[in-house]
């Protein structure tokens, strides 16, 4: 198994180098022979990587502990689904999974090539195969998933219990799909720059792949938030952890990119800016991988210290330097045929939105790298607190959400101000009234009221836009996506501003009042399973004298791992009740618990789902210039 897997990866490595070089030659010499040969090499790269992946999966399922990776990330008591998830739980396996996804996308792109794509297809494939070569190089020389274990073991270590959550089965794959799929827009951008050709077919492909990548990045981030909320047991869903930030950064620039593509489609403006965003978004996906895999910055999500850091840094530098050189060399071909006419046009709103999102990304980027930067500058690691991120994200985020409302009321080219204010009057009045009412009911400082006003304004403005008959289905889907974004915002606003918390040392039989709930502590259950020991604090939950049944939180102890807290959550449309078991003192039979009242959390997930569905709808909509959907690959 070890030799077969390694041989397959080594052969794929050689073939990917060949495919990259020969695709490049095919592009330069316009030679179909080279093109056909490179395509075959690419097919084999895909086949060999797929086969190697199947071998690793079989080894995991068969508990083949002769492989170091299998012995480290699985054991005999692991469920089938978590055994499959172990494929991407470790450094080497996740690297193989990443390479597999890249091979699938590259193969699919080659397979779907049409005559209208042949101009930029060979250079794009050359870039993608070069990426495959890089990842295969890491797998063969730095992080081999088929490395044999030098000694025999009867059972493996197993999967970290923190990772044993349904969200973790889907969170890494979806996030990886998003990350890897951004290779396609990047390769398309490089190919178009090399060929000096920016056709409608090219733009349709760029849009489609960017939407696809963004959608999966959104799903991945949402599942990660869900996992953090349910599994990490601190009551929140976003902790500004470096690895969380690393997945937020390409999401922010990717969002700006989608709007830049729309802007170029509609108005043929800011072509260079659009290409810069493509490069930046892809570079940030590699930066995210670098942060996760280099061990540069400590994080709960990171894979730990490894030797991959320098390789990723060199790769990232090559991407950035190469792209900048190419953009400068092709600047004469990048003259936009049109320009933004007035500040009152919708285009101006988009531009401001881009600046805000990039400013937010820059702030998050600096904060994430602060330990490394400070160590380099002052010789010791300094970490920024959550407050730093909140100070940046709050004003910039609110401005972006406000712009959603403004842009949904503004028109392309020029907005008649009188008409704009007439349309904006109702949302503005509603926003003012909403802010006053929320202040009267629950005064929570300036930011809370501004947040409420922004939400009501933008939400009603988008609904107002939907009121008009929309012949353009793509526009309607964009509005639906924005409704999702705003509901997501409402969830964040509610849960981060209006939450309540109570910490209690509960004795058996004690009743805890936490309006609108009452909790009656029943005592501690102890459960012994073959692979873990569980201590569970059991409560009866009441609301207005109505019994809501049992409610519990537990501590799970698994050998070789830190104890894990399983929280109790009761979700409703208005709030979540969240119970955390901190510790248990057996001598006094006291359970130290925390209770949280998190308003509107469920709207984060509902809003996220609407966002994804809206994007999915847009993905299947045709390109604006009239190219059919099949034209885009």
């Amino acid at each position, binding site marked *: 198994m070890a*030799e*077969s897997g390694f*041989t397959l990866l080594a*052969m794929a490595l050689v*073939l990917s180098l*060949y495919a990259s070089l020969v695709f490049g030659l*095919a592009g330069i010499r*316009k*030679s*179909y*022979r*080279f*093109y*056909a*040969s490179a395509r*075959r*090499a690419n097919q*084999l790269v895909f086949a060999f990587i797929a086969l190697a992946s199947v071998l690793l999966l079989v080894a995991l399922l068969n508990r083949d502990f002769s492989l170091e990776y299998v012995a480290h990330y699985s054991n005999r008591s692991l469920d089938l689904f978590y055994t499959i998830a172990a494929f991407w739980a470790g450094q080497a396996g996740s690297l193989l999974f990443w390479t597999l996804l890249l091979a699938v996308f590259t193969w699919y792109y080659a397979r779907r090539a*049409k*005559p*209208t794509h*042949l*101009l930029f297809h060979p250079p794009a494939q050359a870039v993608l195969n070069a990426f495959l070569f890089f990842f295969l190089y890491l797998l063969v020389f730095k992080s081999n998933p088929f490395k044999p274990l030098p000694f025999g073991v009867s059972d493996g270590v197993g999967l970290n219990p923190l990772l044993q959550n349904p969200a973790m089965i889907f969170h890494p794959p979806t996030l990886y799909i998003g990350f890897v799929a951004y290779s396609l827009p990047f390769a398309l951008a490089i190919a178009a720059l090399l060929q000096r050709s920016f*056709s*409608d077919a090219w733009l349709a492909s760029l849009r489609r792949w960017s939407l696809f990548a963004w959608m999966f990045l959104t799903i991945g981030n949402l599942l990660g938030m869900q996992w953090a909320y349910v599994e990490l047991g601190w009551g929140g869903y976003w902790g500004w952890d470096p690895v969380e930030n690393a997945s937020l950064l390409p999401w922010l620039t990717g969002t700006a990119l989608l709007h830049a593509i729309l802007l170029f489609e509609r108005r043929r403006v800011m072509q260079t800016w659009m290409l810069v965003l493509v490069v930046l978004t892809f570079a940030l996906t590699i930066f995210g991988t670098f942060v996760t895999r280099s061990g540069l910055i400590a994080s709960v999500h990171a894979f730990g210290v490894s030797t991959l850091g320098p390789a990723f840094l060199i790769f990232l530098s090559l991407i950035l330097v190469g792209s900048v050189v190419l953009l400068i060399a092709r600047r004469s071909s990048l003259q936009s045929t049109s320009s933004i006419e007035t500040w009152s046009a919708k285009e101006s709103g988009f531009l401001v939105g881009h600046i805000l999102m990039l400013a937010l990304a820059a702030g998050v980027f600096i904060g994430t790298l602060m330990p490394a930067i400070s160590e380099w500058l002052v010789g010791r690691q300094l970490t920024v607190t959550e407050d730093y991120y909140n100070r940046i994200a709050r004003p910039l985020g609110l401005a972006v959400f406000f712009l959603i409302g403004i842009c949904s009321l503004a028109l392309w080219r020029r907005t008649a101000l009188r008409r704009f204010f007439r349309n904006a009057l109702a949302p503005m009045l509603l926003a003012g009234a909403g802010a006053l009412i929320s202040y009267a009911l629950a005064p929570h400082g300036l930011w809370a009221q501004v947040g409420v006003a922004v939400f009501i304004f933008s939400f009603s403005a988008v609904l107002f836009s939907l009121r008009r008959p929309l012949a353009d289905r793509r526009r309607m889907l964009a509005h639906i996506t924005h409704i999702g974004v705003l509901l997501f915002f409402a969830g964040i606003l509610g849960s981060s501003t209006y939450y309540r918390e109570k910490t209690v040392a509960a004795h058996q039989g004690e009743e805890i009042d936490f309006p609108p709930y009452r909790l009656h502590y029943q005592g501690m259950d102890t459960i012994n399973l073959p692979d873990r020991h569980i201590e569970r604090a059991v409560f009866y939950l009441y609301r207005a004298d109505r019994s809501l049944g049992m409610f519990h939180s537990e501590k799970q102890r698994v050998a070789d791992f830190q104890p894990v807290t399983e929280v109790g959550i009761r979700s409703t449309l208005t709030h979540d009740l969240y119970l955390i078991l901190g510790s248990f003192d057996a001598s006094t039979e006291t359970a130290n618990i925390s209770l949280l009242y998190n308003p509107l959390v469920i709207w984060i997930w509902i809003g996220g789902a609407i966002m994804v569905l809206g994007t999915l709808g847009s993905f299947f909509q045709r390109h*604006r*210039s*009239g*190219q*059919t959907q*099949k*034209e885009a690959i």
Partner: protein
Amino acid sequence: MILLSILAALAAAIYVLAPLFTEPVDLDIRFAAERQKLHLFTHSNEFAAGIMKNRKQAHPPAQIDIDRLLQERFDLNLKDLRNTFTPRRD
């Protein structure tokens, strides 16, 4: 295992290198031809609109004639042709 690996590598090399020797000479210019087609297609919106008009007005003979004409001229798959020839909507 080593023998199997060598055989697999040999088979892969033959499969990959074969087009370099088996493709006819004239295929080298296919890219140039595709480029020409692309240029012609993207610069003939009126022609494209004409095809669509004929299709919408349900004149099958005219459609077949035009399709055949285009197919003969450009030697292109009809499905691809239809994809390329969708009129602008905006």
